[in-house]
């Protein structure tokens, strides 16, 4: 039974009650937190292994919440991963800079991919990994980074999909859009 402020989800043999929070554009969305929950992360990673296309050579994700999830997927699959940042770091060398299409009321985001990390995508089949794909804006920006680095996007995978993103997303389950 869900109350108004929580949504209960089941991943593998684990159940979690996700708090429902208001985002910038005043939508009510369930908050998926892999950070701080290694058991939930492991359960999702185990289920998501089946979503990775076999030709995948590298996984690409973005900070922050999907990071432990992608690490766990990488360790379990043996496929290396690359992580884009949301801020410039002083040590970055010739980074690729990619704007995320604006989705919620005037909030824009920029992704930074350090040059040596971008080089790991060149000529590779890349699967994009996220915790949740909803509008698909971040996924599109990650795909642009793959193309600009000279790689090819094999698939978009996510623990959860919400709504109807513009690309084909392989997800474990859908989150409700009206809460």
């Amino acid at each position: 039974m869900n109350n108004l402020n929580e949504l209960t989800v089941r991943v593998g043999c684990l159940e979690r009650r996700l708090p429902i929070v208001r985002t910038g554009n005043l939508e009510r969305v369930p908050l998926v937190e892999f950070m701080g929950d290694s058991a939930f992360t492991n359960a999702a990673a185990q289920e998501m292994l089946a979503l990775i296309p076999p030709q995948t050579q590298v996984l690409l994700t973005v900070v922050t919440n999907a990071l432990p999830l992608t690490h766990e997927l990488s360790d379990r699959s043996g496929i290396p991963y690359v992580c884009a940042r949301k801020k410039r770091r002083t040590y970055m060398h010739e980074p690729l800079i990619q704007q995320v299409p604006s989705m919620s009321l005037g909030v824009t985001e920029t992704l930074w991919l350090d040059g040596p990390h971008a080089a790991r995508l060149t000529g590779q089949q890349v699967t994009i990994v996220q915790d949740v794909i909803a509008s698909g804006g971040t996924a599109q920006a990650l795909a642009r980074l793959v193309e600009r680095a000279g790689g090819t996007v094999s698939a978009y995978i996510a623990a959860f999909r919400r709504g109807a993103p513009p690309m084909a997303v392989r997800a474990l389950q859908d989150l409700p859009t009206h809460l």
Partner: protein
Amino acid sequence: MNTFKVQVGAVTRDLPIVPVAPGVSVALFNMLGDTEVTEAAGRELARLLPADIDVLVTPEVKALSLAHVISRESGKPYIVIRKTQKPYMVDPVAREVVSITTGKPQLLVLDGFDVQKIRGRKVAIVDDVVSSGGTLHSIRQIIDEVGGEVAAVVAVFTEGQERPEVTALGHLPLFESDPTER
């Protein structure tokens, strides 16, 4: 490019030596995207973790996967201290710190929701590299403020000065560099 060789468990890496300030260079250790090093370090640090620790606390971003692995291996929960305040946080506790790798003031924020998981508990702080100790100092202040006890600090490397209070797998020296070189 000059490099500095390090060993983490059975894994070795040649870290690039990069300038961070006039005359000062560091061996750049970045676990992000390095599954092998993160697993090796996390498993080793989980083994070195004192048995009486209740909870791990880590700053985002670079030590996040490390804390996940230590948590997975030790069975102890971990809490992430964020670098920005999120709209959904309840009564957040914040501190400012100046970081050596960014040179800018950096905010550290604990969600009030996590306070009860730290109060009265023995805490181990988890970080990738403890260098100037600025981040560590601010995290200690936050943990003190909410009534937790810092019982251990674990990191993959200490950097610059030796730090006997930190359980680390190795040490990174600071390097002098030609200030005109970039």
